[in-house]
């Protein structure tokens, strides 16, 4: 009897194990399916000549139609994410320095907590916030690439702040003490020694923030709109601009076959970029923390 009871408990444990294994399969299935379908439908498009360097095509549904390329959308994404990085990286890094290096003042904790909560604010609300601000201040700036860059900056600031703060924290205190003991001033120590030691971690965090911003469509459709004109001078940033995520959204259900294949190509391109950067940065973070643990 005793043995039967034990066998039943063992069986139950095995059943749960199998169920838990099945949930892992169910969770990973979408990842594999997204990558698979993107390659099946977008592979032939992405790897054709000039896809990354040509203009969007005119709509067309015949088999002979050209798919051409996504150059204006790449330019738009690069321009807006670039603006966002120019604004958010200095702000995020300095705020993180405050939160990590001046922690005794107590406000440091408030800053990290605020950044944490801000990173949970839905991205569409960052767009709505910038829109609401410009409606009051200067409506003519709505639907320009500049505005899109600012909206993306609002999304990147909390990400850069948190990742930089964490990177700064991996620098052992003995490094700071050694620097202070040699008579260096605090600001020089912070910038030249602490920030430099944490630099790989900071760069990784910025890269993750950049990829997050590059994939955002929601704040852009309420602040930038869309355009398929190329971005060839600074003045074009004063008007609507294309971007990869908005292109994917707008062309997703296009009745024109060449626009739809264009969107598939863009999906695959964005997916590959995001996955590569994420895997590489995870690897970097892993190696860094291993190194730090060894040094500490």
């Amino acid at each position, binding site marked *: 009897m005793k043995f039967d009871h034990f066998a039943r*408990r*063992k069986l*139950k*444990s095995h059943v*749960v*194990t199998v*169920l*838990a*294994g099945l949930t*892992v399969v*169910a*969770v*990973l299935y*979408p*990842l594999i399916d*997204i990558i698979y*379908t*993107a390659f099946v439908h977008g592979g032939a498009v992405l790897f054709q000549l000039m896809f990354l360097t040509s203009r969007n095509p005119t709509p067309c549904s015949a088999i002979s139609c050209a798919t051409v390329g996504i150059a204006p959308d790449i330019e738009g994404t690069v321009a807006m994410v670039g603006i966002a990085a120019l604004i958010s990286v200095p702000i995020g890094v*300095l705020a993180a320095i*405050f939160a990590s290096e*001046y922690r005794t003042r107590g*406000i440091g904790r408030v*800053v990290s907590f*605020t950044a*944490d*909560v*801000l990173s*949970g*604010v*839905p*991205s*569409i*609300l960052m767009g*709505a*916030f910038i*829109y*609401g*601000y410009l*409606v009051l201040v200067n409506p003519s700036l709505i639907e320009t690439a500049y505005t899109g860059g600012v909206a993306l900056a609002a999304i990147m*600031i*909390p990400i850069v*702040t948190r990742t930089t703060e964490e990177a700064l924290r991996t620098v052992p205190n003995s490094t700071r003490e050694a620097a202070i003991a040699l*008579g260096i*001033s605090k*600001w020089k120590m*912070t910038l030249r020694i602490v920030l430099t030691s944490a630099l790989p971690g900071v760069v990784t965090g910025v890269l993750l923030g950049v990829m997050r911003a590059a*994939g955002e*469509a*929601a704040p852009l*459709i*309420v602040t930038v*709109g869309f355009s398929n004109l190329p971005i060839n001078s600074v003045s074009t940033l004063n008007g609507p601009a294309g971007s990869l*995520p908005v292109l994917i959204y707008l062309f997703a259900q296009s009745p024109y076959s060449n626009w739809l294949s264009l969107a598939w190509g863009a*999906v695959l391109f*964005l997916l590959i970029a*995001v*996955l590569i950067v*994420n*895997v590489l940065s*995870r690897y970097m973070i892993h190696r860094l923390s291993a190194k730090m643990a060894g040094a500490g």
Partner: protein
Amino acid sequence: MSQRRVARWPDQVFFVIVILVAFLVIALAFAIVAILLYNSQQSFRVFGWAFLWSTTWDPNKQIYGALPFVVGTLLTSTIALLIALPLSLGSAIFITTVAPRWLRAPLGTAIELLAAIPSVIYGFWGIWVVHVYMDTTVDPALQKYLGWTGAFSGTYTGFGVLTASIILAVMIVPTISAISRDTLAAVPAAQKEAALSLGATNWEMTRVAMIPYSRLGIVGGIILGLGRAIGETMAVLMVIGSSDRLPTSLLGNGSTISTLIASELLSNNGPLQISAILECGLVLLLISLSVNVVARLLVWRITKSAGGAVA
């Protein structure tokens, strides 16, 4: 012995710059609330508190009420949570207690990669893969076997509230799973060994010694996942089949606050509509802020106490 004094003023200047920028981050949080609040005034003057429970949203007649979108937001994120919860916990338990050590990190990374995929790509996948499957298989089956409940009535197209919820579920699994995994992995070995030494099976050890120990962290992860689902825009927008009315069936069309903002903010129906949309945005902000603050406090408390807790 000569001693060179280091000038103090550069330090002070640096401190001022750094603290000003830090306050800028805090100011950003307040500015978001203030701007949405300020823009809501016009709509609030016209509709008052009834805005929150009015079900009519009609840009032609300039009558606006938020309820269809609030209901859509809560409905999609609740269903998403119900679907995501067992999947996240199951995968977290598998990774921490069952999987061989060499497999743990790769599995965890793979699940976290799901969180890196842009929302618009989920929407695209939703349109071309999930929608087709829903339309041909899931929706008809639900209507046939569960139609009597009333939740799956009406015509179906494969788009709608349920499709949106399923995609949301896929998107929030990594959040819940990662935090559950971290807290389960933080359970002290002594705790687990105690259960095993009493003759517990693997599952009994998980249930008795690990889940109660990490319960707070798991709850924090669930709330963070909920917060993500509440604000998600593009994936939902692309498959929910927008409608300005209260959803009548899980297979029918709906809208959430974020899809409303995305689809109507640039539609130029006058300042009252803009004001009403931004008031909806304010409601969304308050919901997601409260959810996030609760979750962060929970997760913070745990990470803080994890170092000190000794079994």
